[in-house]
């Protein structure tokens, strides 16, 4: 099996990773890194700090793999870890910036220096990042789940452990806020 994990399903990868198989865990990281990046960067912005949080997500996953019973999908399990760590980071930054600045909210979201090689892609991603940056964190997480991850409202509610009605009302308010923000961009 070693060396041919591309075809392996998630449960096989989990089993091998629990036994300390480095290649199997690399395949898990490779498979879900973009999903984690969408959540973390969607919530925190595109910066080196987001990459640190991304690494923490997979380190935490590795240490909790033996507790993973396979009742939920591995992607959902990883997604929940990513959301928890990202929300913790937002809280941490909020506390930190509130000590130094009156307007801490704007400093919670960071932008990386854009890559000049691909202007069109850069513009599209930057537009989305700017739109997300203008949202309150509680709306931003819902928009990230819907827009960047493509989850349905029901799935979003399950992952975020929120009532469906709360997700629907936040989505509607987020949509209004986004229209306003995008109108200015």
């Amino acid at each position, binding site marked *: 099996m070693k060396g041919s994990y591309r075809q392996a399903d998630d449960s096989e990868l989990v089993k091998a990773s629990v036994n300390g198989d480095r290649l199997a865990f690399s395949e898990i990281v490779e498979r879900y890194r973009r999903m984690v990046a*969408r959540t973390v960067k969607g919530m925190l912005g595109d910066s080196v700090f987001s990459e640190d949080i991304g690494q923490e997500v997979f*380190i935490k996953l590795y240490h909790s793999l033996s507790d993973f019973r396979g009742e939920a999908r591995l992607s959902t399990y990883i997604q929940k870890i990513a959301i928890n760590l990202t929300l913790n980071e937002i809280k941490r930054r909020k506390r930190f910036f509130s000590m130094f600045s009156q307007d801490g909210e704007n400093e919670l979201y960071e932008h990386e220096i854009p890559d000049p090689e691909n202007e069109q892609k850069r513009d599209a991603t930057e*537009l989305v990042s700017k739109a997300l940056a203008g949202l309150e964190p509680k709306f931003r997480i819902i928009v990230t789940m819907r*827009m960047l991850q*493509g989850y349905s409202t029901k799935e979003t509610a399950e992952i975020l452990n929120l009532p469906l009605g709360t997700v629907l009302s936040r989505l509607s308010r*987020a949509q209004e806020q986004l229209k306003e923000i995008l109108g200015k961009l």
Partner: protein
Amino acid sequence: MEPSGIKDLIIRSLGENAGDGSITGRLEEEGVTFDFGRDFTQKVVDRIFSVSSELVAEKELFRSMRFVFNRVALTGVAAILILLFSIFMAEGSFSLNSFLGIGDSVDESIVCLLTGI
């Protein structure tokens, strides 16, 4: 796609019927992608497995120390019991003098030895 088209997609992605991931796919096609650096996987794996191997070495050390300690402790307890038994057999009691090996008769012999009488 023009920025206005992307803005439209963003708004539509939050609509009630947009939860099937199709708009997310279209946004990706337009270049809305998020990923970590090229060596992200390697960094993660290195961080996990270098720490793991340190932990394994640490655990191995503790295990061997515990094994050695158990052996030494058992032998020590056995030696103490034999010593107590032999003291009791020789002196007939567990008094402080018998532990220190100085019975009443010993006092006199020390005095004789020191005074030369």
